[in-house]
């Protein structure tokens, strides 16, 4: 078997925790994360199986002061890996942590803040496309009599469903988190 592998994996916008778990499981199974690129192309290389915590942050402020941002995480023992679609990837070995497992956030207020940043940064553009393109086009194409518009109508229907699923997913995630933070 080779020493590297590539896996295709798609995580939607609000699924960063699923992605963190996925990367941790891979490392536990002896596959160290190298990088991610394209549309969810994950590169791994063989390593000694280890429990390593992977964490994603979404912070557009940080792009202006990248080196200070990375330095703060490095000081706290987190290795910076890369930036991908606005997310910064970090990891830290569980053996370097005390009895309690660490994350890059230590309270619910800051976890909720990150969720809001993701919403503003990633969901707002989607909402704009949804209301300014998909919805009007759906309406226009469904009233068009030319034969080509049938194809467009189907295309916009598919987009409509994809976008709707993304919004519902995010809404549910947000709601679940909000509930758990306000117990």
């Amino acid at each position: 078997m080779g020493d590297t592998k590539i896996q295709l994996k798609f995580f939607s916008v609000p699924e960063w925790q699923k992605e963190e778990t996925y990367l941790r499981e891979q490392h536990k199974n002896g596959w160290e994360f190298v990088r991610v690129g394209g549309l969810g192309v994950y590169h791994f290389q063989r390593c000694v199986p280890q429990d390593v915590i992977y964490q994603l942050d979404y912070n557009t402020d940080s792009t202006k002061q990248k080196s200070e941002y990375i330095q703060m995480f490095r000081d706290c023992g987190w290795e910076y890996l890369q930036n991908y679609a606005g997310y910064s990837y970090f990891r830290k070995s569980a053996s370097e942590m005390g009895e309690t497992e660490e994350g890059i956030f230590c309270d619910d207020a800051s976890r909720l803040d990150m969720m809001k940043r993701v919403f503003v940064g990633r969901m707002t553009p989607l909402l704009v496309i949804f209301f300014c393109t998909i919805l009007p086009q759906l309406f226009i194409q469904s009233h068009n009599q030319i034969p080509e518009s049938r194809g467009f109508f189907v295309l916009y229907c598919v987009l409509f469903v994809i976008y709707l699923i993304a919004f519902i997913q995010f809404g549910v995630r947000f709601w679940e988190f909000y509930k758990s933070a306000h117990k």
Partner: protein
Amino acid sequence: MDSHIQKVYVPMTETGFYILLCLREEAHGYSIVKKTEQLTNGEIKISPGTLYGSLSKMEKDGLIRFVREEEKRKIYCITALGTQVLDLEMKRIARLYQSMEAAK
């Protein structure tokens, strides 16, 4: 102090409180983490994501100010507004403590 500051920072998170407490002297992010650990006998360990987010927010809201940069580390210091907010929090916490003692 405007209502936005009141609403967001009174009462404030534990992390927020320790950040302001430490920034009565000039300090960079990681030294805030270390100092908080010392003050709380290792019970509170501020994580970098929380710290970075809090510092940017507090700087934007004028509670702390950027002083200078040393080896890629930004040094901050509390402002007059920050001190005002911290005083309010200290009084609130002292009141909580007194009530707790009185109820024993």
